[in-house]
């Protein structure tokens, strides 16, 4: 089963021909590849909306009609358009169907797959004009993107190593092993200017160059796939959609620094990613792309997967390594840095999934190609998981330097329900909120820090006028308090005290100095915590204080929540001019706080009201208001 370089070239050429119809409508189908490829997303988003059943049903129908040789049903990774799932893409026609229901499958099969007639009703897009346009495969959602890390997600079957090889997979590894010295690989990565995509943005080539000269009997390459930042799911999508790219990149990193063992630390909450990565490792071992004497070059590299167990702090590099060693995932002080003393006390390079996914492409296309994209200090592209109050929730990969406005309005399709944009949160619990006044800031590592947020792993949550910024800050503090490992007091005790202060503010019980006290404590925690989790935990508070101080003041001084979120500060009342006296609300009220005579305006007793909001949801005449 072990493949030589010549074997790999033969597989690549043969499979490339099979896949040609996905690239070129006029390509001649091969006997092996079939005349039509039906790609169905099998990422977590689409699997959650039942895509597995769709794939099964399609396969059944293909078997029934005996079309196995002509029609290939292929499960893929994430297309990125998660809110519109399940997604189906048909080649060579380049037709994308969205929100495909299991009931729609028969129609697609009969009319399109067998009959060649596109099912217009299911095309991506909302109106007829868009639909016609999207049939050509040029949706704005995709046309503004530049997919490098996500290049194979939604394009190949992640469970088929040959498809990855056809997309020039493992060619970068071959190039490194046969044409380059380890120092040459590091120089190339350095020259590309790529910085770590996990959050801190440390230059990847520099990190490798620290570990390379270390003399040790054993070195390690580790991959951080413990994507703990809530709302970020790019690493999961890469593992689900293109797991071989991570294996290849880790082997290249191993060659560059002189390590022959790698560990991938994956969240156990990502079962599909765990399964696909496991399968990919097995396949790579069978082909001899992992193990001893890879491609006959004498280079050895092996890979093991370790599952996380639900601790956000394990995304911090020293905590992650402690966890791989089998202990409580507590961080340790640096120096010594992992490049000197890391996993099991040996020199270790730890890279994030998205960073690694870029490496094979950089190796093949060169440093100049990569650093021609992006801004002065942030090269290449970045994947964002755009979520929250936005129309096109999903994954987008854009060149560094794209503005927030382009992401939210051009690619993301704007805010639903005609509501006003309020803020975008980046960097998760370590990041901050960016207000509307900074919508035109070109996004890169440094510009985000300058406006009080950070890149983080690329979660981007959009909030509209209905979100209370004090409540959001409280939400993130609850998260940090939960996830603080407890090792250092500023984080363990300080974040808890901050949360209590925020709770008082939201309940309207805060004293006049509350905001200043909160700020002081935040700065103390920032300055004195042991690891990045603690040091950055006050960021959500500080950034909302910076841009939405008036909301804090409204809570503290006026005892009022302008967005109408903080329950204790709300009063529900009935507008007499709108109330028709139907009694629907009073019948639904769980505490009998609403009374009145039929066909006359009802009233709410504020002393009885528990502010549950049921009346407001019940009223058909918009007669109930909260303020």
């Amino acid at each position, binding site marked *: 089963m072990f493949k030589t370089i010549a074997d790999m070239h033969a597989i690549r050429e043969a499979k490339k021909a099979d896949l040609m119809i996905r690239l070129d409508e006029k390509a001649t189908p091969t006997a092996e590849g079939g005349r039509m490829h039906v790609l169905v997303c099998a990422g*977590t*988003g689409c699997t959650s*909306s039942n895509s597995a059943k769709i794939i099964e049903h399609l396969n059944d129908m293909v078997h029934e009609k005996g079309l196995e040789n002509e029609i290939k049903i292929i499960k893929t990774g994430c297309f990125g358009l998660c809110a519109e799932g399940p997604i189906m893409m048909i080649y060579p026609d380049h037709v994308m169907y969205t929100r495909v229901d299991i009931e729609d499958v028969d129609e697609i099969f009969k009319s399109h797959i067998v009959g060649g007639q596109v099912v217009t009703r299911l095309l991506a897009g909302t109106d007829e004009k868009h639909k016609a346009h999207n049939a050509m495969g040029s949706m704005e959602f995709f046309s503004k993107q530049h997919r490098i890390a996500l290049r194979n997600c939604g394009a190949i079957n992640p469970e088929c190593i040959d498809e990855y090889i056809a997309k020039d997979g493992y060619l970068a590894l071959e190039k490194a092993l046969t044409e380059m010295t380890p120092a040459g690989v590091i120089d190339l990565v350095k020259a590309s200017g790529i910085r770590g995509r996990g959050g801190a943005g440390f230059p990847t080539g520099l990190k490798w160059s620290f570990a390379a000269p270390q003399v040790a009997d054993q070195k390690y390459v580790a991959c951080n796939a413990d994507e703990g930042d*809530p*709302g970020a799911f790019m690493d999961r999508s890469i593992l689900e959609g293109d797991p071989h790219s991570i294996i290849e990149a880790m082997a290249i990193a191993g060659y560059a620094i002189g390590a022959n063992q790698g560990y991938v630390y994956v969240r156990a909450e990502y079962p599909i990613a765990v399964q696909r990565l496991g399968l990919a490792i097995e396949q790579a071992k069978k082909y001899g792309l992992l193990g001893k004497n890879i491609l006959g070059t004498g280079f050895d590299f092996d890979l093991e997967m370790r599952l996380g167990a*639900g601790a956000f702090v394990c995304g911090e590099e020293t905590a992650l390594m402690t966890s791989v060693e089998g202990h409580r*995932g507590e961080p340790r002080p640096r120096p010594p840095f992992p490049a000197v003393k890391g996993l099991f006390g040996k020199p270790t390079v730890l890279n994030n999934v998205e960073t690694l996914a870029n490496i094979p492409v950089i190796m093949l296309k060169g440093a100049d190609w990569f650093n021609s994209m992006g801004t002065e200090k942030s090269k290449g592209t970045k994947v964002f998981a755009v979520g*929250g109050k936005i129309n096109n929730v999903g994954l987008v990969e854009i060149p560094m330097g794209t503005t927030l406005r382009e992401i939210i309005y051009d690619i993301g399709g704007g805010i639903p329900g005609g509501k006003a944009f309020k803020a975008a949160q980046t960097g998760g619990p370590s990041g901050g909120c960016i207000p509307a006044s900074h919508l035109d800031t070109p996004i890169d590592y440094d510009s985000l820090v300058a406006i009080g947020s950070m890149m983080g792993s690329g979660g981007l949550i959009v909030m509209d006028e209905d979100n209370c910024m004090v409540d959001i800050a409280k939400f993130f503090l609850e998260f940090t308090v939960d996830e603080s490992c407890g090792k250092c007091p500023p984080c363990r005790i300080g974040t808890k005290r901050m949360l209590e202060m925020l709770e008082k503010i939201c309940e309207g019980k805060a004293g006049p100095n509350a905001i200043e006290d909160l700020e002081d404590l935040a700065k103390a925690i920032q300055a004195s915590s042991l690891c990045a989790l603690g040091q950055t935990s006050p960021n959500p508070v500080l950034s909302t204080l910076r841009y939405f101080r008036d909301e804090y003041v409204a809570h503290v001084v006026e005892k009022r929540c302008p967005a109408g979120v903080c329950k204790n500060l709300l009063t529900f009342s009935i507008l007499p001019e709108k109330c028709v006296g139907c009694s629907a609300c009073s019948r639904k009220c769980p505490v009998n706080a609403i009374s009145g005579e039929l066909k006359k305006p009802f009233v709410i007793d504020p002393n009885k009201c528990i502010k549950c909001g049921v009346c407001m*949801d019940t009223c058909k005449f918009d007669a109930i208001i909260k303020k």
Partner: protein
Amino acid sequence: MAMDCASCAETQEKLAKLHEIIETHKDVRGSLIPVLHEAQELYGYLPLEVQLEIANGLNIPLAEVYGVVSFYTRFSINPKGKYQVNVCLGTACYVKGAGKILDKFKEKLGLDVGECTEDRKFSLDACRCIGACGLAPVVTINEDVYGRLLPDQIDAIIDKYKEL
């Protein structure tokens, strides 16, 4: 506790499997967490007896095993319900009203987060982002995923499982 019942064949069988798990991982460095994952898969949770078995098998102090179990949220020392309700409280779900969804489940099931009903039918947990942000707010019940949820859909969902 289940493991006191020495005559029970099922208990013996599980114990044998646990020893097998310990045996396969024993000589691998950093094996405690992989062993705990598999043990929890086997028992559904990690009662003290199981932790003790693991401590003895891997030759490490029970305190260390307990320290690791209590550190990671995925490991549970309490039994879970037959139907495990997990409300996603990731940021994307939160800004789309996951807090209200959680309140509704708490009220309907009479449970706080981390608790299990007396009949062990339902347990309620909150989790941090399952990555299905496109479907926010999301709740999972065992393997089933419920997306784009509204508070008034919850009664019907719970009733469906009550009848199962």
